């Protein structure tokens, strides 16, 4: 059966916010802060970045004014839902010593948040985090509590940023699954209208309650066409299906050395990546040894300590760390999780202070990955 589709006016978004609050959700939406558009608690529609867009290039992100008043006329910023679902810092355990040792561990409480404006690439990222943090033997209960309470309202991309390559990764520009409601903005003169499609029962019931009109015939086709033209406009691409073979063929490729000369090993790419989930565990204790806590903080495979085991670190050079990161994103993830760890959002390209471009790296490896380079595992990789 064809899903029912609705026509929402910009003013209906306020009713949507009210509806979400009545259901116990704290709405979150894109807002201008400092020099970027970020996810922040949304009190009203007026806080959305109307009339603003962003332009990106390797190592560059700039906000610019649009010629219209589009509410969602910008692209992914430095943060993603990872920041809210898989927080940078979380307390895992507290311990107290008072004659005997007492451990305090509270199960994380479900946090109900509705995210308005999730892009298709970021829905794919949430699916990737679900796969890693929820679908195996060990479930990450902090992520689970945040994820269970998350309502996802997607906004389809009807144009692409220069750093986008979601079309090649099959994750966008149009949201195909994983959302509760998907919106496609139709920018009008001074205000916008939206094609709204439910993707879940919750989404369907919210749209039903908004008493919106059915979408006019042709809106769906126009939405599909604008998303397709956004896909066609993308100039960057990664071939995820051939990536594992290319990476395995090029372990000793000189390109890794060239890139390592630029790589700052600062970890920005892993921080902005919406799927990089690695964490470190830190113990802190009071000076009098009567209390201690165990914290979980975001880590990065670009740090020396990341591969520290007894006696030293395994990946001692930035070259080995960059190679590890790229291999993990595009090859090892596919083997382990059956999906790439990259969604084509392009954040790592824009937010790398050295402007290293994952699509350019893959193209360079692929272009010269013929029989010149040995196959299999090298023992002198660093």
């Amino acid at each position, binding site marked *: 059966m064809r899903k029912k589709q609705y026509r929402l006016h910009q003013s209906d978004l306020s009713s949507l916010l009210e509806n979400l609050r009545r259901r116990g959700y704290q709405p979150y939406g894109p807002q201008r*802060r*400092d*020099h*970027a558009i*970020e996810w922040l608690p949304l009190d009203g529609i007026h806080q959305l970045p109307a009339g603003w867009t962003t332009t990106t290039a390797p*190592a*560059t*992100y*700039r*906000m610019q004014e649009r010629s219209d008043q589009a509410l969602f006329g910008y692209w992914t910023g*430095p*943060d993603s839902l990872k*920041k809210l679902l898989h927080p*940078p*810092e979380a307390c895992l355990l507290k311990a107290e010593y008072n004659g005997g040792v007492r451990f305090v561990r509270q199960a994380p409480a479900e946090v109900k948040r509705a995210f308005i404006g999730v892009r298709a690439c970021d829905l794919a990222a949430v699916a990737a985090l679900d796969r890693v943090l929820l679908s195996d033997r060990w479930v990450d209960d902090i992520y689970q509590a945040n994820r269970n309470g998350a309502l996802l309202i997607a906004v389809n991309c009807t144009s692409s940023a220069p750093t986008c390559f979601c079309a090649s990764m099959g994750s966008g520009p149009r949201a195909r699954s994983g959302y509760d409601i998907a919106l496609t903005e139709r920018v009008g003169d001074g205000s916008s209208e939206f094609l709204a499609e439910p993707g879940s029962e919750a989404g369907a019931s919210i749209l039903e309650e908004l008493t919106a009109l059915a979408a006019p015939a042709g809106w769906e086709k126009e939405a599909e066409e604008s998303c397709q033209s956004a896909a066609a406009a993308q100039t960057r691409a990664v071939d995820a299906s051939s990536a594992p073979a290319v990476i395995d063929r090029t372990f000793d490729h000189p390109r890794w050395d060239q890139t390592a*000369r*630029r*790589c*700052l*090993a*600062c*970890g*920005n790419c892993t*921080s*902005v990546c919406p799927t990089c989930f690695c964490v470190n565990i*830190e*113990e*802190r*204790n*009071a*000076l*009098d*040894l009567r209390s201690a806590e165990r914290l979980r*903080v*975001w880590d*990065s495979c*670009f*740090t*020396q*300590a990341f591969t520290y085991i007894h006696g030293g670190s395994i990946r001692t*050079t*930035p070259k080995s760390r960059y190679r590890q990161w790229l291999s993990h994103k595009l090859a090892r993830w596919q083997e382990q999780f059956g999906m790439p760890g990259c969604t084509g959002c392009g954040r790592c390209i*824009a*937010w790398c*202070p*050295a*402007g290293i471009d994952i699509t350019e790296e893959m193209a360079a490896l692929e272009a010269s990955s013929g029989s010149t380079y040995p196959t299999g595992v090298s023992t002198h990789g660093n």
Partner: protein
Amino acid sequence: MSSEPTRPRIAVFKFASCDGCQLSLLDLEDDLLAIAGAVEIAYFPEASRRMLKGPYDIALVEGSITTHHDANLIQKVRRSARTLISIGACATSGGIQALRNFADSGEYVRMVYAKPDFISTLRMSTPIGEHVPVDFELRGCPIQKNHLVELITATLAGRKPAIPTSSVCLECKRRSNVCLMVAAGTPCLGPVTQAGCGALCPAYGRGCYGCFGPMESANAPSLAERFTILGAQPPEIERAFRTYNAWAWQFRKVSEEVRTS
């Protein structure tokens, strides 16, 4: 036999420095009482006239070595201490006063002092680690006081201190600072600087000044190249790397190369 264990004895020494790092110790407030309860502060002239002789379990050493007198004294300090921890940019890299290493310090002496003959100084300002083995270097200009508590706590608990050596960028991202270099084109030393300050300056819209010195695998030449792309001229790039940790080799090398390039 007394069941009360002997409290570890701590001493605080100062060489060429501004005292700011020692002040962070006095600035600990409530934690200072806890520290004073957990250890015996045996020698800390800035805080107390009670100055007990060594040996000490932990010596905290602030400042760089700039005179013959200090070069001899640090040897004695090392011999008196089981664990020697150098604290702050002066002690770990030579400090801001190491700028004289790039020039003729004799000329400075002649310009500044009415009777230069009275001044006996070494040509260079050097970190403690160039003179004696150091057990731990606590970075920062000044040091972060919670690092000091963590270091003392970890040392007393017999565990590794949780003090990162990775970049400031990771701290920036954890506290949701927007990258100034990418989003505003502001030169920032964050990508090559060791974390520890909690990304203080970027949180207030200023590029990192590198107070915590080079991070573990600092790629300063690549960052200098980026500064050039952002429009910085060689003298500006040289100045960016020549501040509190100018003599740290990664910063020193790039500041010398940028001048000749």
